[in-house]
C-alpha cells in the first residue's frame, strides 16, 4: 500500500514538472488537529480529476500546479483524510482544510458502506442511529412515514379519513415516547398526532432512537423511549438541494434547501417544503375519500455560528408551517339527501429556538450549554358536526454544565430545565372549553462512568416541581457490559411521567360518532390523574462473522408497567370513556433482530416482534386493541458498485407481516369474532444514482394491494355507531411514486 502510494507520488511529481503553461493554481492545504487548530499538511496528493497530472504539497502545506485543459476539478488525497474534489475553474488560489475520514483504520482502507441504521457496541444506552440515507428508503415524505423500513418503530394508520400515520414503540403509542428535535422536546401536547408529519424527511440529518427509559437530561416525560431528530446544519449541508416527489394518488411534494457559508464563523440555511394533493380517490367505493385533499407549506431559516478559537457555537432558527386537510365523504358528482359528512383540519405553527454552547478551549472537558425554544401551535378542525380546536403556546429552556470527576473516565452533567405550556381547547358540538397551564422547573444530575473497555454506566436523577403533576424525583439507570469485542449486554430502568392531553392525543374520537364520557374525579387533567410508569429492559447483542461477512443478532426485552394510566376505553359501541387505571396495565415487548451482510453489495435484515400489551378496563383485563401480538419484518438492500462518475443502482425491498389484532366490538364487525385477519405488506424502491449530484427513484408501497374491506363503520355518519377509527390495515391499495434529488 505504502509502496504503491510512493510510486503514485513519484509519477505525479514527474509529470507535473514537464508541464508547460503560464497559468497556475496555488494554495495551502491544512488539517484541523484535535484542539481545532489549523495546521499545514505536507505530502497531500493533488491532481486534476480524471488525469494523471498532479503534485504534492510541500512541508508548509503549499502547492502550485499548472492549470489543465482536461479538467477544472482538483482532487486532494491524503491517507486517513476524506478525498476532496473541488471545482477551481476561474480560481487562481485555492486553500482547503482536509477532513478526517472516520472509516479508516490503520493503513487499510476499509471499503465498506456505512450502514444506514447503526447500533453501537460502545454506547451505554440502547440507541439506534438512523442516518439520512435510511430516510431516503421511504422516499416519502415526512418523518411519520419514514419508519416503515425501521423495525424498531411500528407505523399504522390512525383512522380511515385523516390519512395520518401513528407510530408505536415497544407496543405503546407515540404519546409515551419523548420526541425531541435536537434535544428540545418538540412533538407533545397539541402536536402529538400530526407533529411528526410536519417535519419533512429531507430536513433531517439523522435520528437517534432510544429504546426504554431515556436520559434525565431531556426531562421526565419519556416512558417507553425517545426519538431525537437532528436537522441539517447550514455549515455542513450541501449548498443547494432539490427534491421532487409525485405519486399516482395525486400527492406532490417539493423540497428546496439552500445553504450559504457567509464567513468562517457564520452560515445560514433556508429550507422550504410544500405539498399538495387535490386528487379525489375513493378506490374502495365506500363514499369516503381514501386520503384527504391537502395543502401545506413549511419554511425554516436557520443560522449557525462557530468560533473554534473561542470554543463557542450558537444556533438560531425560526419556522412557519401551515397545513390544511379536507376529508370526509366524496361530494363530487353526487346528490345527497342529507348533509354530507365533511371534515377539515387547519394547522398553523410557529417555532423558534436559540442554542448556545461553550467549550473552554484550554479545559476541553468542561462545557456549558444553553437552549431555549418557543412555539405556538394552532389547530382548528371539524369532523361532521364535531369540533376540535386547540391552541398551545410553549416555552422551554435548559441550561446544562458538563464536567468530570477526577478524570474523563467519570463524567457529570448538571443542569436546570424550565418549561411552560398554555393549552386552550374547544371541544365538540357543545363547544365546551378547557384551559390549562403547565409550569415546571427541574434540576438534574447525571453521572457516567466508562472504563473504556468492558463496563460503562449512566446514572441520573432529576427533581421536578410541577404545578399539576406535583413535586417528584425521576431516577434512571443504564448499564453496559461488554465481555467480548462482539458481545454486549445492556440494562436500563427508570420512571417517567406525563400529563394526559386526552383530546389531542386521541383525535380519532372526533372522526367517530362515539359519545365522550370522562369519569369526573379531582385530577388536574380533565378530572383525571397524570400518567406514571416504570420501564425496564434488557438487550443483548452478539456480532459474528460467517464466510468472512459480518452479521449480528440482537435480543431486546422491555417491560413498561403503569402505576397510573388514563385508560381510553373503546370497548362499548357508541361511546368512548376516559378513566384512571384501576388495576394492571403493562406492555411487554420482545424483539429479535438478525442482520447479515450477504456480500459486499447485499445486506439482509429481519426482525420478529412479540407484544403483550394488556390493560385493566372497566370490563376486565384485555389486550390493547389494534396492537398485533406478532410481527415479522424483512428488508433486503442491494446496490451495484459505484462507477467512476459516481453512478450506481440501489434496490430496497421490505416485507412486513402483521399478525392478528384485537378489535373493539362493533355490530358491523361481528364476522371477525373479535380479531382482525393477519396480512402482509410489501414495499420496494429502485434508485438510479446518475452522479454524486443527481439521482432518481421509483417505488411502490403496499405492492400486494392488501386493504381493509370496511374501514368506515355505521350506516349513517351522524349517529353514535359511526366509526372510522377501527383501522387495522391500509385504506388504499398499491401506490407507486417517482421522484428526483439534485444536490450541489
Amino acid at each position: 500500500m505504502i509502496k504503491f502510494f510512493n510510486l503514485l507520488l513519484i509519477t505525479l511529481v514527474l509529470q507535473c514538472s514537464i508541464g508547460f503553461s503560464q497559468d497556475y493554481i496555488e494554495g495551502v492545504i491544512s488539517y484541523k488537529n484535535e484542539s481545532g487548530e489549523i495546521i499545514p499538511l505536507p505530502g497531500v496528493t493533488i491532481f486534476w480529476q480524471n488525469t494523471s497530472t498532479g503534485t504534492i504539497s510541500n512541508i508548509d502545506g503549499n502547492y502550485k500546479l499548472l492549470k489543465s485543459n482536461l479538467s477544472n476539478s482538483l482532487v486532494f488525497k491524503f491517507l486517513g483524510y476524506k478525498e476532496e474534489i473541488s471545482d477551481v475553474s476561474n480560481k487562481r488560489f485555492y486553500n482547503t482544510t482536509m477532513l478526517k475520514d472516520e472509516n479508516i483504520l490503520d493503513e487499510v482502507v476499509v471499503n465498506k458502506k456505512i450502514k444506514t441504521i447503526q447500533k453501537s457496541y460502545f454506547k451505554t444506552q440502547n440507541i439506534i442511529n438512523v442516518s439520512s440515507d435510511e430516510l431516503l428508503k421511504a422516499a416519502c415524505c415526512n418523518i411519520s412515514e419514514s419508519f416503515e423500513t425501521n423495525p424498531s418503530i411500528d407505523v399504522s394508520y390512525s383512522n380511515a379519513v385523516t390519512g395520518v400515520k401513528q407510530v408505536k414503540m415497544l407496543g405503546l403509542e407515540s404519546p409515551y415516547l419523548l420526541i425531541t428535535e435536537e434535544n428540545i422536546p418538540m412533538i407533545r401536547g397539541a402536536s402529538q398526532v400530526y407533529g411528526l408529519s410536519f417535519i419533512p424527511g429531507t430536513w433531517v440529518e439523522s435520528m437517534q432512537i432510544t429504546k426504554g427509559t431515556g436520559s434525565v437530561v431531556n426531562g421526565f416525560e419519556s416512558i417507553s423511549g425517545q426519538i431525537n431528530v437532528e436537522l441539517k446544519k447550514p455549515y455542513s449541508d450541501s449548498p443547494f438541494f432539490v427534491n421532487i416527489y409525485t405519486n399516482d394518488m395525486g400527492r406532490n411534494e417539493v423540497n428546496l434547501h439552500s445553504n450559504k457559508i457567509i464567513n468562517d464563523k457564520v452560515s445560514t440555511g433556508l429550507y422550504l417544503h410544500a405539498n399538495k394533493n387535490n386528487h379525489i380517490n375513493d378506490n374502495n367505493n365506500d363514499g369516503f375519500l381514501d386520503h384527504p385533499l391537502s395543502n401545506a407549506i413549511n419554511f425554516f431559516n436557520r443560522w449557525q455560528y462557530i468560533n473554534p478559537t473561542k470554543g463557542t457555537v450558537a444556533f438560531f432558527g425560526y419556522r412557519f408551517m401551515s397545513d390544511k386537510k379536507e376529508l370526509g365523504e366524496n361530494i363530487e358528482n353526487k346528490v345527497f339527501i342529507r348533509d354530507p359528512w365533511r371534515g377539515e383540519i387547519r394547522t398553523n405553527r410557529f417555532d423558534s429556538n436559540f442554542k448556545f454552547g461553550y467549550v473552554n478551549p484550554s479545559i476541553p472537558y468542561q462545557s456549558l450549554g444553553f437552549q431555549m425554544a418557543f412555539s405556538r401551535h394552532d389547530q382548528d378542525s371539524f369532523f361532521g358536526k364535531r369540533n376540535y380546536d386547540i391552541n398551545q403556546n410553549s416555552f422551554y429552556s435548559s441550561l446544562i454544565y458538563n464536567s468530570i470527576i477526577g478524570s474523563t473516565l467519570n463524567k457529570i452533567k448538571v443542569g436546570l430545565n424550565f418549561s411552560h405550556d398554555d393549552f386552550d381547547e374547544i371541544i365538540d358540538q357543545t363547544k365546551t372549553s378547557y384551559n390549562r397551564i403547565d409550569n415546571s422547573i427541574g434540576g438534574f444530575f447525571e453521572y457516567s462512568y466508562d472504563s473504556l473497555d468492558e463496563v460503562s454506566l449512566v446514572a441520573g436523577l432529576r427533581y421536578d416541581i410541577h404545578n399539576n403533576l406535583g413535586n417528584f424525583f425521576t431516577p434512571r439507570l443504564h448499564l453496559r457490559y461488554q465481555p467480548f469485542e462482539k458481545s454486549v449486554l445492556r440494562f436500563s430502568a427508570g420512571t417517567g411521567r406525563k400529563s394526559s392531553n386526552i383530546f389531542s392525543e386521541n383525535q380519532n374520537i372526533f372522526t367517530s360518532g362515539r359519545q365522550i364520557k370522562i369519569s369526573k374525579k379531582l385530577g388536574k387533567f380533565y378530572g383525571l390523574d397524570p400518567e406514571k410508569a416504570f420501564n425496564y429492559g434488557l438487550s443483548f447483542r452478539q456480532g459474528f462473522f460467517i464466510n468472512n461477512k459480518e452479521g449480528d443478532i440482537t435480543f431486546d426485552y422491555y417491560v413498561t408497567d403503569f402505576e397510573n394510566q388514563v385508560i381510553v376505553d373503546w370497548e362499548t359501541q357508541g361511546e368512548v370513556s376516559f378513566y384512571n387505571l384501576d388495576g394492571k396495565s403493562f406492555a411487554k415487548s420482545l424483539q429479535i433482530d438478525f442482520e447479515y451482510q450477504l456480500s459486499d453489495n447485499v445486506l439482509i435484515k429481519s426482525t420478529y416482534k412479540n407484544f403483550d400489551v394488556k390493560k385493566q378496563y372497566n370490563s376486565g383485563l384485555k389486550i390493547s386493541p389494534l396492537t398485533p401480538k406478532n410481527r415479522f419484518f424483512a428488508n433486503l438492500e442491494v446496490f451495484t458498485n459505484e462507477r467512476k462518475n459516481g453512478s450506481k443502482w440501489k434496490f430496497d425491498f421490505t416485507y412486513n407481516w402483521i399478525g392478528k389484532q384485537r378489535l373493539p366490538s362493533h355490530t358491523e364487525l361481528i364476522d371477525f369474532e373479535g380479531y382482525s385477519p393477519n396480512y402482509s405488506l410489501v414495499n420496494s424502491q429502485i434508485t438510479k444514482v446518475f452522479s454524486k449530484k443527481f439521482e432518481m427513484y421509483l417505488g411502490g408501497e403496499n405492492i400486494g394491494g392488501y386493504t381493509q374491506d370496511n374501514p368506515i363503520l355505521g350506516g349513517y355518519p351522524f349517529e353514535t355507531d359511526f366509526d372510522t377509527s377501527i383501522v387495522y390495515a391500509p385504506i388504499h391499495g398499491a401506490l407507486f411514486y417517482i421522484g428526483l434529488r439534485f444536490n450541489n
Partner: protein
Amino acid sequence: MKYLIIISLFFSALTFSQKNNLKSQKVSFLVKGVCEMCKDRIEEGTIKLKGVKYVNWDIMSNNISLIYNSKKITLDAIHKGISLLGHSTNKYTAPSEIYNSLPDCCLYETLEIH
C-alpha cells in the same frame, strides 16, 4: 424556597469544579506512535494513570496534550507511565520487550509516518 434549592445546587456544582481547575496543570510533549490504534492505546493507558484528568494525542504531530493534578502525579511519572505502554516519549524510551509486543502497524521505529 424549593426552587432556590434546585438552583443553588446547580451553581454550587459549577463553583466546585471551577475550584478544582486551580490544581490542574496543562502540559504537552512528544509521544511516538503512528495510527488510530496507537491513539487508543496511548489515550486509554494515560487516562488510567491516577491524577491524569484529560488526555488527547494527535496522530499527525505525535503531540500529547494532557491535564493532570500536580498533587496526585508528577510529570516524570506520566512520562514513565506512557513509555511503559510501549510508546517512547522525549524523556523515556519504551522498554524494547513492550515495544516489540505492539501490533505491527504500531511499530513507529520501523514504519514511515504516513
